């Protein structure tokens, strides 16, 4: 099962090695990992999608907590959160299929960022599932190049306040 972990870490040169090292060393399966600074440059957020059983995910969390740079871990899997990935791809086009491709881009609310008479470059940002579908649809054509980020995620403020309210009412 896929789990989405958001890990707040101290931002310094060795952090990513420590975190990724933990995954290789203990043989945990990781689907994606993305890192970025927070508003405070002293901290970064590492968002990762881990494909493991819940018991193993608890073990991963505990092992992560033992790394001195780790400050906080949130499992966003069970929470209401916004999840986003970005994919950029270049598809070969010709006179015959160009209209069809542009229509599909429209359907997926993608953005055409560049175009020549033989290719289009498309950018699309969405939840991981729609990104999968998008890529599958476009693989009918000749994808010349593709780049894709990992998932980033953030808990909805409305989801959080709902839960806190219900906690208080207990």
């Amino acid at each position: 099962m896929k789990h989405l972990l958001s890990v707040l870490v101290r931002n310094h040169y060795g952090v990513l090695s420590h975190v990724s090292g933990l995954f290789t060393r203990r043989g945990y399966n990781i689907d994606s990992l993305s890192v970025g600074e927070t508003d405070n440059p002293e901290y970064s957020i590492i968002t990762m999608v881990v494909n493991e059983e819940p018991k193993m995910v608890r073990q991963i969390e505990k092992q992560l907590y033992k790394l001195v740079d780790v400050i906080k871990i949130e499992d966003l899997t069970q929470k209401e959160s916004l999840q986003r990935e970005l994919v950029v791809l270049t598809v070969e086009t010709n006179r015959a299929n160009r209209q069809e491709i542009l229509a599909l881009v429209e359907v997926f609310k993608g953005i055409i960022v560049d175009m020549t008479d033989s290719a289009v470059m498309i950018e699309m940002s969405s939840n991981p599932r729609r990104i999968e579908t998008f890529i599958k649809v476009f693989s009918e054509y000749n994808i010349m190049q593709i780049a894709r980020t990992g998932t980033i995620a953030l808990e909805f403020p409305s989801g959080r306040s709902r839960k806190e309210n219900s906690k208080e009412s207990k």
Partner: protein
Amino acid sequence: MAKEKKNNTKNENVPEKTGAKIVIDTLLENGVKDCFGYPGGAILRVYDTIFHTSELKHYLVRHEQGAVHAAEGYARATGKLGVLITTSGPGATNIMTGLADAKMDSTPILAITGQVGTYEIGTDAFQEVDTYGMTIPITKYNALLKSPDDAARVTKEAIAVALSGRPGPSLIDFPKDVQNGLSSNYKDVKMRIPAFHVEKPEISGSVDEIINAINRSAKPVLYVGGGAVISNASRNIIELAEKAQIPVVSTLTGLGAFPGDHKLSLGMLGMHGTAYANKAVMECDFILSLGARFDDRVATNTEDFAKNAIKAQIDIDSAEIEKRVNVDFFISGDLNDVLQKINPQIESVSKSPWAEHVQKLKIAHPLAFDEGGSEIKPQQLIYELWKKTKGEAVIVTDVGQHQMWTAQFYPVKHPRQFICSSGLGTMGYGLPAAIGAKVGVPDKDVILISGDGSIQMNIQELGTAKMYNIPVKIILFNNGYLGMVRQWQELFFEERYSHSTMSGNPDFIKLAAAYDIPGKTIVSKKEIEEGLSFLLSSKGPCLLEVSIPWEEKVFPMIPAGRNYENMIEYEHKKDKGSLVSIIPHNPQK
């Protein structure tokens, strides 16, 4: 000329110091008095600082691996931080085994390694290796010190992390220019790591459930591990065991946390544990782990381990909870604190049929070996040593059969009295660790029990023992074999002894003599008394070589991965004399 790192936060009122001096002074402020090490080009400024620092006693080893194991032995014997210093490149790679060893056995040490200048890092400079990158998986804390302004903070963090919670190794990689660079930023500096990494965690988990389970169970067992030694929980473990009449089994690292000669002690459990410990675990209805981790030498088979028992676990490292074996209840927190909370609520038991049954298990299933002819049996010699030293010597071992015989036949009484490489099983650990232990506890007898294979892995440290006249007493069991390997080949590879003989062994007595260390060899039973007298009465370092039969094996044995029902108790060959039975874990009354 080498560029030097300039400080950015100049404090006018505080005199500047070099990075090297800041690190050494921070060690002193934290109570460090001894260190082990080996100099080289990338650590010269630190060594120059040590030259001027008489409060810090430095021991020059003969190989950096010796320094790291000595630091481990020191830490294990004292509970304090063990410190070692090496140069960059080969100096740093030579300590990898010891760092991994300290990580496995939760031993608090701090390694300071020299590094090429920051301006050279990444250029494959002379004696440059990525020490930081290489030590990530084998340290609890590591840092590449990039500025003298960070020297005090990083040193404080490294010390605090090594000693806190579940202890472990820290490493500071210290570039040349940062050692030389000046800074006045060393007074009252604050650590930058989140507090929960260095503070005692709060107690959380099923406290009431565990109290109830203890009070309700008819056949409980306490399973004591290294965490019990680390958290100084001995007194409370004794109280709990006595109050509720609970038999106690121990892991290799836990030995001594509960007195081995206590009536309720069953000695070590697991692969080479006593039959009575293992049988008690098979029969119990409740097992409580106290700072132990259900590792594969204990829970040889995770499904079948203590199959019929309710299982509970107390550990300061919550990642140990349910890592291998599922438990019914757990508490995370410092063991001693937890026991303080639990003990008052335990009902006193005056007479326990279970405890009496377990005493009968001891008598029915003692440790046993063939008496043999005139040759010396290692088990017997160790048991004689135990009697002669009244079970009070600090025992250090290497790795192999001799280690297991010692764990079985020398039931230590106190925590920090039994020191060996347990989790990593590092041959060559013994001699330097014994040196470190003796430096740490100079008033106690420190006896190393080693094998002909293991001792040759760090034999050069005889030079260190001699140079500083560190009186480690060495018993060397010479069976001419990598005995433990040979035993497995005999039992599981149809006696194909592939590369496990040690023909080509030196004359160990001559070797010791070359270091001006007195030695003696004994070969027959009647010499045991004389040999031990020689060993125990020697003032400086000394070596007693004990020639033992090559075919002697360690029993009981549970083959790897099998369950406790598959335990082989002993092998009795009628032509090898009658069976000698010993129950070391019985009060001599």
